[in-house]
């Protein structure tokens, strides 16, 4: 047993030696842990995994990508926030995780304090109705909702999701009343529209590609700022005269107090990956998303702006007191 104790001491000694030597050298020296707050197979997961090889190329060290879904993604962000600020743990986080859930529930981290690396991709949203619905345009839909208050139901992936809040924002502007119906995710919301259980749904574009292409679903409006490849004829919410669009993105964050040099290096790695032709093409043709790099300060600015916007809507719909 004595030998055993001795070896533990030896190991402890080595540990200290190793950990000090690592911090002193140039970053990165060992694999970087990267948390994905969503489950495997989803759009965010696929995009993060597509970017990873190029980031590895730039950083010269492997990325260990780990899916940590749960608690609307706040679990992964909380873990990032609580890990060592040495640059060896960073997390992919989408904007609502940072700015909506932190207002809805008490969380062990303050999104303001996190270091924002960059964002790689905005999510794009579209309002869909069934192909045999009587509305063909956004105006008809709004008109119907106005004259039939409370009659329209729409499916969203959870109350408090940007999908829900964006349509409530429209309702505020247009002074209409409609009913959000929360589903576990985008696919279930689409299924509910197809089955005729709700009238419309607001989902991310990727989830809707198949049903839109086959004509099962009719898109009415794009809630993002730019028109979408998949449905180039459908106008955006900005074109319809609203001074607002539903913004949400896939970005990356580091724990508070991470040295700027490390943050910058990761930012450059993401930029490098985003600029690859291969990534751009795959995103457009395979995943139906747009890669749009924004650096850390732009990302932080957007987060601050939408913290307020979504906060106001949350108060309006009564989710936040």
């Amino acid at each position, binding site marked *: 047993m004595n030998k055993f104790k001795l070896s533990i001491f030896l190991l402890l000694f080595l540990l200290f030696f190793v950990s000090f030597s690592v911090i002193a050298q140039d970053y990165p020296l060992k694999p970087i842990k990267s948390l994905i707050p969503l489950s495997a197979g989803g759009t965010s997961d*696929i995009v993060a995994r597509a970017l990873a090889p190029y980031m590895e190329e730039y950083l010269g060290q492997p990325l260990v990508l780990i899916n940590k879904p749960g*608690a609307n993604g706040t679990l992964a962000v909380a873990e990032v926030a609580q890990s060592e600020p040495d640059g060896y743990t960073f997390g992919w986080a989408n904007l609502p995780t940072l700015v909506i859930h932190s207002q809805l529930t008490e969380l062990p981290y303050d999104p303001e304090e996190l270091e924002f690396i960059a964002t790689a991709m905005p999510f794009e949203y579209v309002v869909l109705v069934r192909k045999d619905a009587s509305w063909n345009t956004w105006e008809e839909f709004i008109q119907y909702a106005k004259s039939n208050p409370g009659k329209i139901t729409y499916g969203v992936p959870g109350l408090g999701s940007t999908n829900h809040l964006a349509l409530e924002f429209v309702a505020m502007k247009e002074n209409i009343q409609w009913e959000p119906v*929360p589903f*576990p995710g985008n696919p279930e919301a*689409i299924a509910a529209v197809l089955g005729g259980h709700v009238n419309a749904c607001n989902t991310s574009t*990727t989830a809707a590609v198949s*049903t839109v*292409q086959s004509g099962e679903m009719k898109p009415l409006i794009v809630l993002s700022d730019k028109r979408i490849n998949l449905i180039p004829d459908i106008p955006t919410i900005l074109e319809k005269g609203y001074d607002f669009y539903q913004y949400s993105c896939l970005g990356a964050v580091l724990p508070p107090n991470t040295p700027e040099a490390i943050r910058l290096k990761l930012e450059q790695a993401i930029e490098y990956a985003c600029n690859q032709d291969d990534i751009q093409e795959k995103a457009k043709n395979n995943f139906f998303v747009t890669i749009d790099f924004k650096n850390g300060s732009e990302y932080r600015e957007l987060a601050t702006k939408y913290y307020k916007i979504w906060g106001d809507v949350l108060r309006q719909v009564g989710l936040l007191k």
Partner: protein
Amino acid sequence: MNFISNLMDGINYGFSFLNLLGILVGYLLGIIFGAIPGLTGGMAIVLLLPFTYNFSPIFAIATLMGIYKGGVYGGSITAILFNIPGTPMAAATAFDGYPMRIKGEGLRALEMALFASIIGGTVSNLLLMFTAPPLARVALKLGPAEISALIFFALTIITNLMGNAAIEIWKGLVAAGLGLLFSIVGLDMLTATRRYGFGIIQLDSGINYIVAIIGILALAEVFNQIDQAGELKLAVLKEVKIFKRPTMKSRLKDLKICAKDIFRSSIVGSIIGALPGLGATEAAFLGYGEAKRNSKHPETFGEGEIIGIAAPESANNAVCAASMIPLVTLGIPGSVVAAALFGAFMIQGMMPGPMLMKTNPEVIYGLFVLMLVTDILGGLIVAYPILYLAEKYMKKIAYNVLFPFIIVFCAVGSYGINFNTFDIKVLLFLGVFGYFIKRNGFFGPIFLIAFILGPFLERNVRTALIISKGSISIFLRSPVALILLAFSVIYTISSIKKKFKK
């Protein structure tokens, strides 16, 4: 004939040595992950998914399908041999599988589990090939109100699992109540507000149902068997001199006995699988409950009834192919595995759904054909030898040395879901809880059924009420919901009446 030509294209596209090899290797991996308590086939798929991004689409998907089906089958091996289900889906298989093993009929049970799996999987594959579009339409028509009623109906199988004595009925109800209560922990699924959070953020995602099942069934069973180490069941087993080997005649006889139940379970499993959200575990319990309900001698269930193996195993395997129905016909992934496959398709530049059926039917039909092959080839070439090897070598192994390893696997499996040590702590809590209730005569599976189905029931009832603006008429206006609710009431009353007569 459009269908025939599509099918031929699919065979051309899908059949290659490499793809078949992928299936077999996948099936083997699936069985290993499935058979080890704590690890599941679903976990293997999620962890291996990123690796498939570099392969050709059909090879990647063939391998993943192999893992999926192998994983669903593999759980039954440990369920029968050790009374420790390797996966949640095999929980119901242990009810009768282990008693059969004690009686020296382990091989008979293992073989029946395999045959039922192959048949259930094949029936569901054929349904997917021939009736996917209409079946998907039917599944879509089932809205929150109908699904609520269906889940309520499924919950009533609990009354069938309870014993006959009055005290056992009360205990069953208590176990169900506790299951419902435990499932409330975590964020409210509709409003994302906390319930029983106790200031622990890890509790926000609630108690993971896989952790719950591993804890209540596997870990609690390990603790329980440790206690029996003195007169370990193994010792009993060693005394069984006659290990009955199945013969061709006995196999056919067994299949004949179970034919009706296998067929019913395959259909039940296919319907459950086609519904987004519900999965193999629910299907297995439902298949078991239905078989017991329809049996002329329900009292033999739990004592080593061969139908008690055939019914859940065919039901859980039928879910595999059926869960692809919403994916293939509508582009909607209805389960975790389907979502992973969705990703596998997408990374290859193919968007699963109705468009893929139109533009690249050979891919979809190739998938169908490979799935059909997976069950038969995987089952006979991979699973069959494994089953004999397992039966042979597990007789020799010292159980008491095995337990710590099983505990480590359970812990690693729980950790692997979210990569969080908190889940291992929950696992231990539930393991001790399961051990405690087991020692006091409560039936763990009742707790689990309520635990798994409770949240579905709550979500769907509340969603239905949101749609109807609070009026319960939504349940009464739908004929499907009404019939299911009426059935639930009739069944509950009749089964309780039966109990009182005894």
